[in-house]
Each structure stands twice: as structure tokens, then as C-alpha cells.
């Protein structure tokens, strides 16, 4: 596999030093500006930018350290205990992990269900979001209206949207089956059907998510593609499809990659719709991995075991992400990089 490097390779060190020196040279004289020691200046341009960057992300860092890192580490320790939250945790070593892999009837099926959900939700969701972004990128009259309409479901409160769809998918008097009956089709029980329950939840997610943040990211990616590339392609005689195939798509691959990684992560976390619409049923049909984790933690109060499930999921997610990163060099094109 060919490795890639930047088409604008970093300047030689001597040149870089000269640039840094140039950037800081006059600061010694400017009033109110940090004075630097003769020789190598401490507050270089790069350091200033780095400092500014840290200042900008500091709210997130503080929040992460204060509110998330502690529970994360605590859950790692709790995963090695039997802990019902009322009594103190008891150390059990790796028993929870062994139980998950060997003695929990719901562990593997729930993981499979989550993966099935991902397999349905991610490709269709990304494709539809991309299609919507392409439509909005046409700069036609009424684009702003359509952008708002597409985005609207994603700002609808999740619970309200799910209840809305539960009614639509109601098998006996729901709008969906009624519509199908008009064309002579007898619809399934949707959320009440073992076979259709997960596709139904995928449908609900697609309705709420395709026009949301994912579409906006794609739209930003599309609008970041230089117009000159399209002009050059047009001059070379490329039609709309070829421009899309050979300009848009390659230039958008970093965005597609980014969106894919995040969508997989979010899809594997599927929980809310199952919690509200199906309660994990019928007959465990929507008993997803995170649902299993939640039940263990917050209804059966097996907090130690639930923590172990959380860390197993963490490993699964890391594995997924690692594989995607390994594969990205085969299809992701970064502007400004070239093959060496």
C-alpha cells in the first residue's frame, strides 16, 4: 500500500526557523507585546497558536475531566466488582467479563442485533444524507426553505418523534398500513413484528437523522470543494455524473470517512427508540446491546456487570474505528496530499 505525504512538504528546518524568527522578530520592539529572550524565542507563533487552541477547547477539557473521566475510570474499577449500589462493591476480578462471554444468554444476541442495526442504518443513512446535501448544494430557489424542512425532524424532541412513529406504524389503524392498504398491500405489524421491529427502528432513526447534523457536515464538505476543479473538469468535457464521480466524490471522501466513523459509533449506541417504542421486544427482537447494558445497570442494579458490558462495548467501538482507519488509505483522498 502506497503511503501518502503532503504535497506541500514541511519547510526545511532552517526555513521554518527563519519563518518563526520573522514572525517574532519585531515583537521585542513592539510596546505591550511579549518580550522574548535573545536567541530562541519562547513564545513562538506556533506556541501562541497552540495556547490559543487550548484556551478555546478548555471548556470541553474541563468538562471532560470533571464529569466524564472520573466516571469512566470508576466504571473500569466497578467492572471488576459485584456492585448493586446499595451495598459496597465486592471485588470479583474478571468474573463479570467471563460471565458476559460465556454465561449470559443475551450478550451475543444483543450484540448481533446492534450490529444488524448498524448494517442497516449506517449505509442508508449516509447515502440519504449525502443525497440531501447534494440537492441543497444546487443553489436553487427555495434552498433555504428545503434546508429548514430537512433539518426540522432532527430538532424534534426524540421522544415525541418516536411516539409519532409508533402511531404511524400501528398495525391496525396506523397511517403507514392504511396507506399501504390503498394500493392493496397488507402491511406487517412493524414494531410488533419480530422480523420488522429493527427495520422499523432504523426507519425512525433515518427520519430524524438524515436531514440533521450529518447532512450539514456533508453540505459543508461540498461547499469546500474548489470551484476551479469543476470548471477544469467541465472544460475537459466532463458531464454531471463524471464531475460527481471524479471530483465531488474523491474530494468528499474525508468527510464521508469522518461521518462514517461517527455514524457507526452512534448507531451502535442505539437505545432510546428501543426503550420508548418497543421495550426491547417483541420477544427480545430489539434488545440491543446498550439496552441490555441499561437494564443490567438501572433496573436490575447489576452495576459491576453493566460496567463490564460498557468496557466491552468500548473495545468493540475501538476495534471498529481502528479498522476504519486502517482501511481509509484505500479510499480516502486528502486534498493537499500526494502519493510519495
Amino acid at each position, binding site marked *: 500500500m502506497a503511503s501518502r505525504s503532503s504535497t506541500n512538504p514541511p519547510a526545511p528546518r532552517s526555513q*521554518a526557523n527563519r519563518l518563526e524568527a520573522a514572525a517574532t522578530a519585531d515583537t521585542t520592539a513592539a510596546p505591550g507585546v511579549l518580550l522574548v529572550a535573545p536567541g530562541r524565542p519562547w513564545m513562538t507563533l506556533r506556541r501562541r497558536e497552540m495556547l490559543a487552541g487550548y484556551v478555546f477547547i478548555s471548556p470541553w477539557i474541563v468538562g471532560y475531566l470533571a464529569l*466524564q473521566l472520573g*466516571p*469512566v475510570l470508576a*466504571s*473500569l474499577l466497578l*467492572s471488576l466488582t*459485584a*456492585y*448493586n*449500589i*446499595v*451495598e*459496597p462493591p465486592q471485588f470479583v476480578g474478571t468474573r463479570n467479563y467471563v460471565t458476559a462471554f460465556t454465561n449470559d*444468554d443475551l450478550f451475543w444476541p444483543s450484540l448481533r442485533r446492534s450490529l444488524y442495526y448498524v448494517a442497516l442504518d449506517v449505509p442508508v443513512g449516509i447515502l440519504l444524507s449525502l443525497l440531501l446535501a447534494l440537492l441543497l448544494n444546487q443553489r436553487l430557489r427555495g434552498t433555504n426553505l428545503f434546508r429548514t424542512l430537512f433539518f426540522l425532524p432532527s430538532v424534534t424532541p426524540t421522544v415525541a418523534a418516536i411516539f409519532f412513529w409508533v402511531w404511524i*406504524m*400501528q*398495525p*391496525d389503524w396506523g397511517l403507514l398500513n392504511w396507506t399501504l392498504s390503498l394500493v392493496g398491500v*397488507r402491511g406487517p*405489524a*412493524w*414494531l*410488533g413484528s*419480530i422480523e420488522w421491529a429493527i427495520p422499523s427502528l432504523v426507519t425512525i432513526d433515518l427520519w430524524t437523522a438524515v436531514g440533521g447534523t450529518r447532512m450539514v457536515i456533508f453540505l459543508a464538505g461540498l461547499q469546500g470543494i474548489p470551484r476551479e476543479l469543476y470548471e477544469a473538469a467541465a472544460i475537459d468535457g466532463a458531464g454531471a455524473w463524471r464531475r460527481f464521480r471524479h471530483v465531488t466524490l474523491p474530494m468528499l471522501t*474525508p468527510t464521508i*470517512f*469522518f461521518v462514517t*466513523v*461517527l455514524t457507526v*459509533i452512534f448507531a451502535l*449506541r442505539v437505545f432510546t427508540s428501543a426503550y420508548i417504542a*418497543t*421495550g426491547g*421486544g*417483541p*420477544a*427480545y*427482537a430489539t*434488545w440491543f446491546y*446498550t439496552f441490555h*447494558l*441499561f437494564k443490567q*445497570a*438501572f*433496573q*436490575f442494579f*447489576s*452495576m*459491576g*456487570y453493566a*460496567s463490564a458490558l*460498557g468496557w466491552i*462495548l*468500548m473495545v468493540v*467501538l*475501538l476495534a471498529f474505528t481502528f479498522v476504519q*482507519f486502517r482501511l481509509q488509505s484505500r479510499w480516502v483522498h486528502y486534498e*493537499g*496530499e500526494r502519493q510519495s
Partner: protein
Amino acid sequence: MQILSRRGFLSIAALLGVGTLGGVMAACGPAATPTPAPAKPVEAPKPAAEAPKPAAEATKPSVPAAAAPSGAVAPVTLRFNNRTGREAEIFDEMAKVFREKRPNIEIKNESFPGANQEYFQKMALLVAGGTEGDLVWMSSIEGFYDFASRNAWLPVDDLVAKDKVELGQWYKAAVDMMSVEGKMYGLPLWSHPSITGLFYNGDLFDQAKLKPPDGQQSFEQHAELARQLTKRAADGKAEVFGFNPATGYYNGHGQVILAFGGEMISKDGKQMTYDQPAVREALQWMADLYVKHKVAPVPGTDDAGQLQANGKLAMWASGVWGSWASKQWKFTNWGATLTPKGKSGKYGAMLQTDANPISKRSKNVDAAWEFHKFMCSEPAGKILRDGTYVPSSRPDIYESPEAKANKGLAPFAAALREAVPLPKPANYRLRELEIAINQVMGNLWLGKMTVDEVTKEVNRVGQQILDKPAGAA
């Protein structure tokens, strides 16, 4: 030095996303639920001598709890944890009436939102953090037994004996349900005989020229009635359903099992019993409603309230709260009776009793006990009967003229007389067992498993739960 590339940025962003997710998942839970601190060991019970001693606490023998003398407790404020909604409103009403007799005891209702699951999560966290109220409303299915077995509640045997509380004023099964491992953890607040009510739309019976059920029908007669009341379109699809049974373990098919003479679980709470012939017969009767007769809507997909309200359902199983929902119905011609009697000669009534146990950490035991007694008394029972959907645990309330005049409530008195205590697993994993059984049973209602297959699977899955150690771990 090279500035962070886009690839690098995306890599870091995605990895941080995974890391953050891991954190969220590892600490997975409702957004508003804090991660609990490790629980302190539950404090040892305070010696009775530590509690403020009322000057004249003695209660006369056989005097109802509500008639306890007033002014015996030093001024205190009691914290009472309960659920928002009608229940909280009714507890407010009770507190007002109570304070007329006991002005020195202030009741601070701390009501928490959420359905059962969310409410009991909250209570578990409060107990874990040692910050629960002096009194805590608890459901028999959710956490009453589990917490009692962990010494979270105060045993009241001594208080009952001291006040010579006449336990015969409540249903015996309800009193029995208040005991865990030989200790009594409260008086029964309210009870209901599970899903033994049968409500019906009188208009649909009139249209079909059929006589409504009277509580004496057999299961076969009931199924036949449901068939006759089901109306179908030309394509065979039901437009009006004859009957909507309840399918749950504690609220639903469990009552049918009991009516057929089966057991929901062994008497010692350690063995599954779904291989009993009576259980299989009961489940076959229910499965036929869905799969063979097709007189019932697909479980889990129909909001029964919608069907009732719109006159699309002729009969439905419900509990004592059934008539409460009648306010939403367009039709006024409705009635209520009891579900069929089975081979056992009974309705299959199983008691569910909720309580307001006193926290073992309470520093106001005497005051809490006074309010606890009041909430289980006849005057409080009248407030419950007239203002909410589960009227007390008292025969004198369920059999009162006012209850008999309530057509939605009156039939349940007969069910309560025969009701057996809720059969509970020896390890108190009630909800875990219920959820597992309900999920597996879905295969039967949807026609994906036969009774043979489903009973074997329920026994297998249920036994795994019964074999777990007591409580969660």
C-alpha cells in the same frame, strides 16, 4: 514543524469521539442520573430509645390506626418520597387531613417524576446515597422486598405490637405480603388483585345483540363471546376486536395460569413451574386468542386506550384502575365484571400491595409511624377510594357502599377475597424475572413458538434468574 493535518485532526476527533462514547457508555444511564457514590453500609437501626419519646403514645387495643391520639410527637418535618401525578396529589390530601389531627408533624412530599422504572431508579440511588426520605412509597414488584432484604426499611413488628395494631382490618394476604424473612416492614397501603377485571363496551354488545359477561363465564364461553364480537373487513382484517387480554407475567397471563389451577412459580420461589399441565393449558387458551381466533390486537402495538376510546374494542382485561380511564371514552355505555373463572374455581386473583416503608435511617421514627398508620387507615382509604385508582388494602373500603356503587370498582371485591399473595422469587429478582418471561412469551403471542416450545424456554430462562444470588450483583 508540520501543522496538524486534516487527517490528523479527523483521527483525533474520531478517537476522542470513541473515548467520550466509552465514558458515556461505561457510565450509561439517564442523563439526569448522577453516578452514585459507593454506598455507605446501611446504618444499624436506631434504638427505639433514641427517637423522641411521645408523652402519651399508648394506643388502646383494637382502636383503628387512624384514631391514634394526637399531639404525642415533638414537632418534626417528615420527608416522604413518592411519585408525581395523581398519587402525589392524593398524598398531599392525606397529609392535610393528617395534620388536622397531628399539627406538630409536617409532611414534606418529595415527589419524583417518571414511570415505574425511572422512579425506582431514583429511589435506589437515594437509598444508595443515604438520602431517602423518612417514608418511601414502594411497589411490591419493584423494590420493596429487595430493599427490605438489604435492611433499608425499618421493621415495624415492635411498633405494631406496642400500638396493638389490629392487623385484621386489612386483607390478610396484603398483611402477609409486608413480611420479608420473618420481619414486617410496614402496613399495607393499597392493594389490587392484578388483572382480573373485565371491562366492556355496552354499545358493541347491543349492536351484536349479545349479553355482557357477568363474571360467571367459563374461559371457553369467553373466547366464543370474543369471536362473536370481532368484526372483520372483507379482507379478514379485524376492525373491531373482541377482546384484549393482558399478557404480562404479574399483570396478565399469570392470572390466567392461576385461574386454570397452575402456579406461576414454586411456593418456595426457587423453581419455575411452566411445565405444569395447567400452565400449558392456560397459555394455550391465551395463544389461541391471538393465533387461532385472531380476536385480539397484536400485543405491544395497540394502545388499548385508543381502541377503547374509539369503540374498536368490545372487551378488555384491566385492573381496578380500569374505570379511572373511562373519562377518556366517548361512550358511556360500559360495564365491568371479572375475568372468567377457571378450573380452579377462581378468578386467578393475585395480590399486589404497595407500601410506604419507613427508612431505617429515619431520625423521626415515631412521627413517621404515625403518618404511616394514618395512610393505611380507613379515613385515608376513603380518600384513596374517592380520589384515585387503587383504593387501599382494606375490605371495609372495597366493600363499602360507595365502592359497590362504583360500577368499575364493585366487581373487584370478589377477586380480592380470593386473592393470593404475589408469588415472589426467593432471591427477590421480581422485575428481572418478569421482564425475561414477558420477552420470551412474546414468541407465543406472535405465533413464533408453540406452547411446548415457549414453556420450555420460559422455564430455562426463568430458572437461570432464580438460580442467581439474592438481589443484584
